[in-house]
């Protein structure tokens, strides 16, 4: 899980071109969208596209978006569950 969290942080930085942010700067449990990173709805859109492309994960509603992007840890949990679902 820690590996996935680190990977996701790097992906977030790369996808959103967060030049002055490092992996260490992103708190695992801090609010991702609308939080201290200053990410907004457009960033959310970009992350949704990234999730679909790189992890095969679709975020199909506002409610899902709120849950999945609650934090990096929540995002990692969601991806893990999605992968388990695929295996099953």
């Amino acid at each position: 899980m820690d590996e996935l969290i680190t990977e996701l942080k790097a992906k977030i930085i790369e996808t959103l071109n967060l030049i002055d942010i490092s992996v260490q700067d992103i708190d695992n449990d801090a609010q991702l969208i609308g939080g201290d990173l200053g990410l907004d709805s457009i960033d959310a859109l970009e992350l949704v596209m990234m999730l679909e492309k790189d992890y095969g994960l679709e975020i199909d509603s506002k409610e899902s978006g709120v849950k999945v992007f609650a934090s990096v840890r929540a995002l990692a949990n969601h991806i893990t569950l999605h992968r388990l679902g695929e295996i099953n």
Partner: protein
Amino acid sequence: MQNFFYRFLTTLSRLMGKWVFRIAAWGIASGYFLFSPTRVAVSVRFYRALSPVRHWLYHLWCAWKQYHSFTHVFMDRIFFRDAHDFVFTNEGWEYLDEAVNKKTGGVILMSHVGNWEIAADLLLRVHGRKNSGLKLLLYLGLKRKEQIERAQKESLARNGVKIIAVEKDGGSPFDILEGINFVKEGGFVSLTGDRKWRADQRTISVRFLGHEAFLPETPFIFALLSGAPLFIFFTFRTDGGAYHFKNFPPEYVCAENRSERRNVIRKAAQAYAELLEDAVKRHPFEWYHFEPFLGRKLDNE
């Protein structure tokens, strides 16, 4: 209290005739004009930019006309029951047809020109009969959604138009997610091109009537990320109460890499600003924006 008065007025108008609403609307529009000097100043500034050589009294008169022209929007919303109620013409709906047939989906960029709710309703009632694949999602400011007459909301819902109301302050940054999925499924999402719906929304600078103006970036980013074509759409109320709908050929907002994005979005936004400028020059009393829009004068920069 306001809702009660509005419902009372519309009921009375349906019983006694539209003249009741016309008279009341004239009074209300005049009241807004006389007692909202800040908003009137915004309109006067717009008309000064539109006709810089004319006297300030002319600009004030234009603002007066604009306020009274806006009453038509409300009247048409209330009394619109059936497509036969309105005479209308259209240009460019074949581009939407093509997008529906190819299942590309699309982003429809609307403006506060004319009456978009009627356009959306007619688009589906008349145009949608020919092409049942046309699905439409409207993003509207919450206040605007509340202004839509209940009967028209029901009509829009019956014709399959989905409305998402976005609160001006607050609201969720995830409101946009339903739209991207809608487009991916071949639907059409309508977004406002000439006004932000959230205070913290990102904007892009354009040139408009010789001034700097800031347009919401969302529609262009939406088109870029979804890959869907962008349609610029205007509605105009012509003489005699008829409507004309104009849809421009689709544009694709594409960037080969991230560093190019800002540039392509700026070009797309400027193209829209130029079409909007042309539209307001042709129909100067039908741009019901009423919010500060013009920034600093650019002269010949």
